Protein backbone atom coordinates (compact mmCIF):
# COMPACT_ATOMS: atom_id res chain seq x y z
CA UNK A 1 0.00 0.00 0.00
CA UNK A 2 1.11 3.54 -0.73
CA UNK A 3 2.77 4.81 2.48
CA UNK A 4 1.19 8.22 2.05
CA UNK A 5 -2.30 6.73 2.00
CA UNK A 6 -1.41 4.53 4.96
CA UNK A 7 -0.33 7.62 6.90
CA UNK A 8 -3.52 9.41 5.89
CA UNK A 9 -5.57 6.43 7.03
CA UNK A 10 -4.26 6.83 10.56
CA UNK A 11 -3.77 10.53 10.88
CA UNK A 12 -7.00 11.86 9.35
CA UNK A 13 -9.31 10.00 11.77
CA UNK A 14 -7.13 11.07 14.70
CA UNK A 15 -7.28 14.64 13.45
CA UNK A 16 -11.07 14.41 13.16
CA UNK A 17 -11.31 13.16 16.74
CA UNK A 18 -9.12 15.94 18.10
CA UNK A 19 -11.03 18.53 16.09
CA UNK A 20 -14.33 17.23 17.46
CA UNK A 21 -13.55 17.00 21.18
CA UNK A 22 -13.83 20.22 23.14
CA UNK A 23 -10.54 21.56 24.38
CA UNK A 24 -9.34 21.08 27.95
CA UNK A 25 -12.52 19.64 29.36
CA UNK A 26 -11.37 16.21 30.40
CA UNK A 27 -8.69 17.38 32.84
CA UNK A 28 -9.93 20.56 34.47
CA UNK A 29 -8.11 20.00 37.75
CA UNK A 30 -4.77 21.70 37.93
CA UNK A 31 -3.73 20.32 41.30
CA UNK A 32 -3.36 16.61 41.86
CA UNK A 33 -4.55 14.88 44.99
CA UNK A 34 -1.30 15.16 46.94
CA UNK A 35 -0.89 18.87 46.22
CA UNK A 36 -4.50 19.37 47.25
CA UNK A 37 -3.92 17.52 50.49
CA UNK A 38 -1.05 19.84 51.30
CA UNK A 39 -3.23 22.88 50.62
CA UNK A 40 -6.07 21.49 52.69
CA UNK A 41 -4.02 20.41 55.70
CA UNK A 42 -2.24 23.74 55.86
CA UNK A 43 -5.65 25.36 56.59
CA UNK A 44 -4.19 28.54 55.21
CA UNK A 45 -7.47 29.33 53.48
CA UNK A 46 -9.19 30.48 56.69
CA UNK A 47 -9.59 34.16 57.49
CA UNK A 48 -10.84 35.11 60.93
CA UNK A 49 -14.03 37.18 61.23
CA UNK A 50 -11.96 39.90 62.86
CA UNK A 51 -9.67 40.17 59.85
CA UNK A 52 -12.61 40.29 57.48
CA UNK A 53 -14.47 42.80 59.63
CA UNK A 54 -11.38 44.97 59.73
CA UNK A 55 -11.13 44.97 55.95
CA UNK A 56 -14.83 45.77 55.68
CA UNK A 57 -14.54 48.69 58.06
CA UNK A 58 -11.46 49.96 56.23
CA UNK A 59 -13.38 49.54 52.96
CA UNK A 60 -10.43 47.59 51.57
CA UNK A 61 -10.97 47.59 47.79
CA UNK A 62 -9.22 44.22 47.47
CA UNK A 63 -11.87 42.42 49.47
CA UNK A 64 -14.51 40.53 47.56
CA UNK A 65 -17.01 38.67 49.73
CA UNK A 66 -18.72 35.75 48.04
CA UNK A 67 -21.85 34.20 49.49
CA UNK A 68 -22.16 30.58 48.39
CA UNK A 69 -25.58 30.00 50.02
CA UNK A 70 -28.87 29.89 48.12
CA UNK A 71 -30.25 33.13 46.63
CA UNK A 72 -33.12 33.05 49.16
CA UNK A 73 -30.74 33.01 52.10
CA UNK A 74 -28.61 35.65 50.41
CA UNK A 75 -31.62 38.00 50.09
CA UNK A 76 -32.55 37.54 53.73
CA UNK A 77 -29.13 38.40 55.02
CA UNK A 78 -25.72 38.96 53.55
CA UNK A 79 -22.52 40.69 54.46
CA UNK A 80 -22.01 44.20 53.03
CA UNK A 81 -20.78 44.20 49.44
CA UNK A 82 -21.07 40.44 49.07
CA UNK A 83 -22.09 38.84 45.81
CA UNK A 84 -24.04 35.63 45.57
CA UNK A 85 -22.56 32.59 43.84
CA UNK A 86 -24.73 29.66 44.94
CA UNK A 87 -22.64 26.53 45.31
CA UNK A 88 -24.47 24.61 42.53
CA UNK A 89 -23.59 27.43 40.10
CA UNK A 90 -19.94 27.57 41.09
CA UNK A 91 -18.69 26.24 37.74
CA UNK A 92 -20.97 28.44 35.69
CA UNK A 93 -19.11 30.39 33.02
CA UNK A 94 -20.39 33.79 34.24
CA UNK A 95 -18.60 33.50 37.60
CA UNK A 96 -15.31 32.23 36.23
CA UNK A 97 -13.84 35.73 35.91
CA UNK A 98 -14.68 36.47 39.53
CA UNK A 99 -13.19 33.28 40.94
CA UNK A 100 -10.19 32.98 38.62
CA UNK A 101 -8.24 36.22 38.98
CA UNK A 102 -5.26 37.41 40.91
CA UNK A 103 -6.14 40.97 41.85
CA UNK A 104 -8.84 40.72 44.51
CA UNK A 105 -9.02 38.62 47.61
CA UNK A 106 -12.10 36.43 47.45
CA UNK A 107 -13.56 35.46 50.82
CA UNK A 108 -16.11 32.67 50.53
CA UNK A 109 -18.69 32.21 53.24
CA UNK A 110 -21.71 30.12 54.09
CA UNK A 111 -23.61 29.54 57.33
CA UNK A 112 -20.96 27.25 58.72
CA UNK A 113 -17.67 26.51 57.00
CA UNK A 114 -18.77 23.40 55.14
CA UNK A 115 -20.18 24.82 51.91
CA UNK A 116 -17.65 27.62 51.65
CA UNK A 117 -14.90 25.07 52.09
CA UNK A 118 -16.38 22.88 49.37
CA UNK A 119 -16.36 25.84 47.01
CA UNK A 120 -12.80 26.68 48.03
CA UNK A 121 -11.64 23.11 47.38
CA UNK A 122 -13.02 23.10 43.86
CA UNK A 123 -11.72 26.55 43.02
CA UNK A 124 -8.27 25.66 44.35
CA UNK A 125 -8.14 22.41 42.42
CA UNK A 126 -8.95 24.35 39.29
CA UNK A 127 -5.82 26.35 39.96
CA UNK A 128 -7.64 29.54 40.97
CA UNK A 129 -5.73 31.68 43.41
CA UNK A 130 -6.67 34.23 46.06
CA UNK A 131 -9.69 32.37 47.37
CA UNK A 132 -10.21 32.21 51.13
CA UNK A 133 -12.86 31.01 53.53
CA UNK A 134 -14.46 32.99 56.34
CA UNK A 135 -13.60 31.04 59.43
CA UNK A 136 -16.64 29.66 61.20
CA UNK A 137 -18.98 31.10 58.61
CA UNK A 138 -21.86 33.42 59.35
CA UNK A 139 -22.67 31.63 62.58
CA UNK A 140 -19.32 32.47 64.04
CA UNK A 141 -19.54 35.92 62.50
CA UNK A 142 -22.82 36.57 64.32
CA UNK A 143 -21.33 35.29 67.52
CA UNK A 144 -18.14 37.33 67.42
CA UNK A 145 -18.86 40.47 65.40
CA UNK A 146 -22.58 41.06 65.57
CA UNK A 147 -23.22 40.07 69.17
CA UNK A 148 -19.89 40.02 70.91
CA UNK A 149 -20.05 38.80 74.47
CA UNK A 150 -18.42 41.27 76.77
CA UNK A 151 -15.44 39.83 78.51
CA UNK A 152 -15.29 39.87 82.27
CA UNK A 153 -13.54 42.85 83.81
CA UNK A 154 -10.65 40.60 84.83
CA UNK A 155 -9.84 39.73 81.23
CA UNK A 156 -6.50 40.77 79.80
CA UNK A 157 -6.34 44.06 77.92
CA UNK A 158 -6.12 42.20 74.65
CA UNK A 159 -9.53 40.69 75.12
CA UNK A 160 -10.99 44.07 76.01
CA UNK A 161 -9.45 45.68 72.95
CA UNK A 162 -10.84 42.90 70.77
CA UNK A 163 -14.27 43.42 72.26
CA UNK A 164 -14.10 47.14 71.61
CA UNK A 165 -13.10 46.52 68.01
CA UNK A 166 -15.90 44.03 67.52
CA UNK A 167 -18.46 46.38 68.98
CA UNK A 168 -17.22 49.16 66.75
CA UNK A 169 -17.27 46.95 63.70
CA UNK A 170 -20.71 45.69 64.56
CA UNK A 171 -21.95 49.22 64.75
CA UNK A 172 -20.29 50.28 61.52
CA UNK A 173 -21.63 47.27 59.70
CA UNK A 174 -25.14 47.52 61.12
CA UNK A 175 -25.06 44.76 63.67
CA UNK A 176 -27.62 42.82 65.62
CA UNK A 177 -29.48 40.96 62.92
CA UNK A 178 -32.87 39.59 63.77
CA UNK A 179 -32.73 36.33 61.89
CA UNK A 180 -29.06 35.69 62.23
CA UNK A 181 -28.28 32.03 61.78
CA UNK A 182 -28.15 29.62 64.65
CA UNK A 183 -24.90 29.83 66.40
CA UNK A 184 -22.70 26.83 65.87
CA UNK A 185 -20.18 25.53 68.35
CA UNK A 186 -16.99 27.50 68.59
CA UNK A 187 -14.70 25.84 66.14
CA UNK A 188 -11.11 26.94 65.98
CA UNK A 189 -11.05 30.40 67.53
CA UNK A 190 -7.45 30.93 66.52
CA UNK A 191 -7.33 33.23 63.51
CA UNK A 192 -5.33 31.44 60.87
CA UNK A 193 -3.02 33.71 58.99
CA UNK A 194 -3.31 33.27 55.28
CA UNK A 195 -0.13 32.03 53.72
CA UNK A 196 0.08 32.51 49.99
CA UNK A 197 2.02 29.55 48.69
CA UNK A 198 4.14 29.58 45.62
CA UNK A 199 3.25 26.98 43.04
CA UNK A 200 5.73 24.13 43.05
CA UNK A 201 5.72 23.72 39.32
CA UNK A 202 7.84 25.93 37.17
CA UNK A 203 7.80 26.83 33.56
CA UNK A 204 10.81 25.67 31.63
CA UNK A 205 13.15 27.95 29.85
CA UNK A 206 13.20 27.48 26.15
CA UNK A 207 15.31 28.77 23.35
CA UNK A 208 17.16 27.11 20.57
Amino acid sequence: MNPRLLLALFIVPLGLIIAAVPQDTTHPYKLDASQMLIEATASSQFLSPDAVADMLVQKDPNLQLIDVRTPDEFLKFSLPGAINIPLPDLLSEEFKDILDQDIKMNVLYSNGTLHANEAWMIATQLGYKNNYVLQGGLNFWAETIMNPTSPSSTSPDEELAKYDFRKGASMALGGGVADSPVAAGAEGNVPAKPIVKKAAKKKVQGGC
Partner: protein
Amino acid sequence: MVKKEQTSKTAGYINPYLGGVLLGLVLLAAFFVSGRGLGASGAIKSTIVATVDAVAPAHTEKTKFYQEEAASHGEKPMKSWLVFEMMGVIVGGFLSGALAGRLKLKVEHSPKITSRRRLAFALAGGILFGFGSQLGRGCTSGSALTGMGVMSMGGFITMAAIFGTAFAMAYFFRKNWI
Protein backbone atom coordinates in the same frame (compact mmCIF):
# COMPACT_ATOMS: atom_id res chain seq x y z
CA MET B 1 24.23 1.45 -13.61
CA VAL B 2 20.99 3.39 -13.44
CA LYS B 3 19.20 0.35 -12.13
CA LYS B 4 21.65 -0.15 -9.32
CA GLU B 5 21.35 3.49 -8.31
CA GLN B 6 17.58 3.22 -8.23
CA THR B 7 17.70 0.36 -5.74
CA SER B 8 20.25 2.06 -3.49
CA LYS B 9 17.87 4.99 -3.08
CA THR B 10 15.29 2.94 -1.27
CA ALA B 11 17.53 0.34 0.35
CA GLY B 12 19.43 2.52 2.78
CA TYR B 13 16.89 4.89 4.18
CA ILE B 14 13.65 4.25 5.97
CA ASN B 15 10.39 5.41 4.51
CA PRO B 16 10.09 9.19 5.00
CA TYR B 17 6.60 8.97 6.48
CA LEU B 18 7.77 6.38 8.99
CA GLY B 19 10.77 8.62 9.73
CA GLY B 20 8.43 11.55 10.21
CA VAL B 21 6.22 9.68 12.65
CA LEU B 22 9.29 8.52 14.60
CA LEU B 23 10.70 12.05 14.65
CA GLY B 24 7.34 13.33 15.85
CA LEU B 25 7.40 10.78 18.67
CA VAL B 26 10.92 11.87 19.66
CA LEU B 27 9.70 15.46 19.72
CA LEU B 28 6.70 14.42 21.80
CA ALA B 29 9.01 12.64 24.24
CA ALA B 30 11.04 15.84 24.56
CA PHE B 31 7.86 17.78 25.36
CA PHE B 32 6.75 15.17 27.86
CA VAL B 33 10.07 14.99 29.68
CA SER B 34 11.22 18.56 29.69
CA GLY B 35 8.36 20.71 28.43
CA ARG B 36 10.44 21.98 25.55
CA GLY B 37 11.05 20.68 22.11
CA LEU B 38 14.16 19.79 20.20
CA GLY B 39 16.82 22.22 19.12
CA ALA B 40 20.27 22.49 17.65
CA SER B 41 21.48 26.06 17.31
CA GLY B 42 20.99 26.69 21.03
CA ALA B 43 23.74 24.17 21.75
CA ILE B 44 26.08 26.08 19.42
CA LYS B 45 25.24 29.31 21.19
CA SER B 46 25.99 27.72 24.57
CA THR B 47 29.30 26.46 23.27
CA ILE B 48 30.21 29.88 21.91
CA VAL B 49 29.27 31.56 25.17
CA ALA B 50 31.29 29.05 27.19
CA THR B 51 34.30 29.22 24.86
CA VAL B 52 34.47 32.99 24.71
CA ASP B 53 34.08 33.14 28.46
CA ALA B 54 36.97 30.70 28.90
CA VAL B 55 39.26 32.39 26.36
CA ALA B 56 38.53 36.02 27.14
CA PRO B 57 36.63 36.44 30.42
CA ALA B 58 37.30 40.17 30.43
CA HIS B 59 35.61 40.44 27.04
CA THR B 60 32.42 38.71 28.17
CA GLU B 61 32.27 40.99 31.20
CA LYS B 62 31.72 44.02 29.04
CA THR B 63 29.84 42.59 26.06
CA LYS B 64 26.10 42.89 26.24
CA PHE B 65 25.17 39.66 24.48
CA TYR B 66 27.06 37.43 26.92
CA GLN B 67 25.70 39.35 29.86
CA GLU B 68 22.13 38.86 28.67
CA GLU B 69 22.87 35.18 28.09
CA ALA B 70 24.26 34.75 31.58
CA ALA B 71 21.23 36.51 32.99
CA SER B 72 18.71 34.36 31.16
CA HIS B 73 20.46 30.98 31.00
CA GLY B 74 22.59 30.89 34.11
CA GLU B 75 26.30 30.78 34.73
CA LYS B 76 26.96 27.30 33.35
CA PRO B 77 26.12 27.48 29.65
CA MET B 78 27.38 23.97 28.84
CA LYS B 79 25.13 22.31 31.40
CA SER B 80 22.10 22.91 29.26
CA TRP B 81 19.46 20.62 27.89
CA LEU B 82 20.28 21.36 24.26
CA VAL B 83 24.00 20.68 24.68
CA PHE B 84 23.29 17.21 26.04
CA GLU B 85 20.68 16.63 23.38
CA MET B 86 23.11 17.56 20.59
CA MET B 87 25.75 15.19 22.00
CA GLY B 88 23.07 12.54 21.72
CA VAL B 89 22.41 13.54 18.11
CA ILE B 90 26.03 12.91 17.20
CA VAL B 91 25.92 9.48 18.85
CA GLY B 92 22.55 8.63 17.31
CA GLY B 93 23.60 9.72 13.83
CA PHE B 94 26.80 7.71 14.11
CA LEU B 95 24.92 4.59 15.26
CA SER B 96 22.44 4.82 12.42
CA GLY B 97 25.21 5.44 9.87
CA ALA B 98 27.23 2.53 11.23
CA LEU B 99 24.29 0.13 11.13
CA ALA B 100 23.46 1.10 7.55
CA GLY B 101 27.09 1.12 6.42
CA ARG B 102 27.18 4.80 5.55
CA LEU B 103 30.25 5.79 7.59
CA LYS B 104 32.64 7.36 5.13
CA LEU B 105 34.80 10.47 5.09
CA LYS B 106 33.84 12.39 1.97
CA VAL B 107 32.76 15.70 0.55
CA GLU B 108 29.34 15.22 -0.92
CA HIS B 109 28.70 17.35 -3.98
CA SER B 110 27.05 17.38 -7.37
CA PRO B 111 29.32 15.96 -10.09
CA LYS B 112 29.09 19.31 -11.87
CA ILE B 113 30.98 21.27 -9.20
CA THR B 114 34.31 20.84 -7.45
CA SER B 115 34.81 19.90 -3.81
CA ARG B 116 36.36 23.28 -3.17
CA ARG B 117 33.26 25.08 -4.43
CA ARG B 118 31.03 22.83 -2.35
CA LEU B 119 33.05 23.56 0.79
CA ALA B 120 33.06 27.31 0.15
CA PHE B 121 29.29 27.31 -0.17
CA ALA B 122 28.94 25.10 2.90
CA LEU B 123 30.96 27.61 4.93
CA ALA B 124 28.99 30.60 3.64
CA GLY B 125 25.72 28.81 4.22
CA GLY B 126 26.81 27.86 7.71
CA ILE B 127 27.67 31.44 8.61
CA LEU B 128 24.31 32.68 7.35
CA PHE B 129 22.44 29.88 9.08
CA GLY B 130 24.28 30.47 12.33
CA PHE B 131 23.54 34.17 12.22
CA GLY B 132 19.92 33.67 11.17
CA SER B 133 19.27 31.08 13.87
CA GLN B 134 20.22 33.60 16.55
CA LEU B 135 18.18 36.37 14.97
CA GLY B 136 15.17 34.08 14.53
CA ARG B 137 15.52 32.59 18.04
CA GLY B 138 16.00 29.06 16.79
CA CYS B 139 16.72 27.03 13.71
CA THR B 140 14.66 24.56 11.72
CA SER B 141 14.45 22.21 14.70
CA GLY B 142 14.08 24.65 17.57
CA SER B 143 11.90 27.28 15.98
CA ALA B 144 10.21 25.80 12.93
CA LEU B 145 9.62 22.14 13.90
CA THR B 146 9.13 22.60 17.65
CA GLY B 147 7.22 25.82 17.10
CA MET B 148 4.84 24.04 14.73
CA GLY B 149 4.36 21.24 17.26
CA VAL B 150 3.14 23.69 19.90
CA MET B 151 1.39 25.85 17.27
CA SER B 152 3.50 28.89 18.08
CA MET B 153 2.79 31.76 15.73
CA GLY B 154 6.49 32.64 15.56
CA GLY B 155 7.30 29.02 14.68
CA PHE B 156 4.95 29.03 11.72
CA ILE B 157 6.27 32.40 10.53
CA THR B 158 9.90 31.28 10.75
CA MET B 159 9.10 27.99 9.03
CA ALA B 160 7.39 29.80 6.17
CA ALA B 161 10.27 32.31 5.90
CA ILE B 162 12.97 29.59 5.80
CA PHE B 163 11.33 27.37 3.22
CA GLY B 164 9.86 30.25 1.24
CA THR B 165 13.23 31.99 0.90
CA ALA B 166 15.04 28.78 0.05
CA PHE B 167 12.49 28.04 -2.68
CA ALA B 168 12.76 31.57 -4.02
CA MET B 169 16.57 31.43 -4.10
CA ALA B 170 16.79 27.85 -5.41
CA TYR B 171 17.03 29.04 -9.00
CA PHE B 172 20.22 31.04 -8.36
CA PHE B 173 22.04 28.13 -6.77
CA ARG B 174 20.74 25.39 -9.03
CA LYS B 175 24.18 24.67 -10.44
CA ASN B 176 25.33 23.48 -7.02
CA TRP B 177 22.66 20.84 -6.73
CA ILE B 178 21.28 19.73 -10.11
